[in-house]
């Protein structure tokens, strides 16, 4: 369980999080909803240790994390396969990594794009590669910032099914209320 107590975070004059208290249950799917600019990405960045809090306390936040960023994090001028090797090459042996990549590319209907350059992928394809990277990274917590953005209905379905199968703490920010209701164990609304 991760506990956030009285968290404050601001960027210059702008107070993004004001006294946030939150409990994230272990091995459950927690969905964070709220209007644009309310601080969902900031909260996820704090949980991923990318951003530091101004004040407050976070209890039990020393986990290995995989994070699907909202922005494009794939390397330019680089093949899909090398984007996987970039983060996973040191973690799995060559053969195992190859098998895992093939399995997940197949699952997300991207098998034929394995040797494609990033520039030749659509927004939805880039999103799927980012998701597969995070799924393959051995972590305790999986954080996904707007993962359904740019995905078509079929892919959303595949991702939801996949996330439901995973036995780890998952934190998702999303605008898609129907999907959130379908997938979440806990829903947190930022106001």
């Amino acid at each position, binding site marked *: 369980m991760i506990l956030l107590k009285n968290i404050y975070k601001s960027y210059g004059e702008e107070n993004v999080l004001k006294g946030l208290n939150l409990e994230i249950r272990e091995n459950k799917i927690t969905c964070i909803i709220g209007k644009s600019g309310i601080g969902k990405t900031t909260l996820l960045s704090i949980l991923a240790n*990318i951003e530091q809090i101004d004040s407050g306390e976070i209890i039990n936040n020393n986990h290995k994390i995989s994070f699907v960023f909202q922005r494009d*994090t794939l*390397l330019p*001028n*680089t*093949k899909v396969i090398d984007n996987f*090797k*970039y983060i996973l090459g*040191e973690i799995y042996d060559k053969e195992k990594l190859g098998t895992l990549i093939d399995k997940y590319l197949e699952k997300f209907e991207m098998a034929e794009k394995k040797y494609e350059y990033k520039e030749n992928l659509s927004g939805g394809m880039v999103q799927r590669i980012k998701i597969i990277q995070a799924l393959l990274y051995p972590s305790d917590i999986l954080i996904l910032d707007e993962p359904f953005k740019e995905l078509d209905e079929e892919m959303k379905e595949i991702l939801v099914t996949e996330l439901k199968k995973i036995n780890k703490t998952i934190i998702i920010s999303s605008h898609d209320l129907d999907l959130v209701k379908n997938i979440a164990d806990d829903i947190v609304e930022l106001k």
Partner: protein
Amino acid sequence: MKRFIMQNNAIRIILITIFWLLIYQMLYMYIDNDIYIPSIQSILKEIVNIFTNKEQLIDIIFTVGRMIMGSTISIIAAIIIAVICASTTYIFDFVKPAMAILKTAPSIVLIIISLIWLDAEDLPVIICVAMCLPIMFSNIVYGILNIDKVHLDFVKVYNIKKKNVYSYLYISLLKPYFISGVNTIIGISFKVIIATEILALPKYGIGKRIYDSKLYLKTDEMLAWTVIVIVASLLIEKYFNKFATKRVKVIV
């Protein structure tokens, strides 16, 4: 369609070339003095002479060799210094003024000062490095400093090994800065090396030949050498870009 565009492009280049050659020919006829403006025929004759003379071919090899050596040293040194500066701010603070001085100092001043204490044979390469290094350095260091924060956050979250950060992230993100820097220094390095050769007069080199042709008022020979330098510079630039724009295969 592609063939049509290429044909169209070739015709366009030929027409532009003919246009400028006509302008030159008109100037030649108007001035009517071979010392000021030699004829196109005499320049072409001189080019043929140069390529059929063994000694003059050695001059070309020496100048091109110096250019390649000077550019390569600049590129390697710039990459090493830029990586160090990008990771250590206070080293960057020390290096910045040195690079600014090299960048803004007139090359002629550097050549004359260096002539006092350096060998004429080594001088062209050293001056080339002094002129090209700051250009290449700025390109690479600002490329590193401008890496989008999201990529750095990604490295942090996934705890990516330094080896992979260099071989994947830096190569893919810095490639455009690298190509633009090399394209700039190819032209500059030729200019600097020939200017240095003219002043330092090493045993072999295009600059020495240009100096001789100026001395004996052989303008046609001087322009023939100039044409050779321009063509060599364009060819190197073209082949570099052809090689550089091929996708980088990352070897880990």
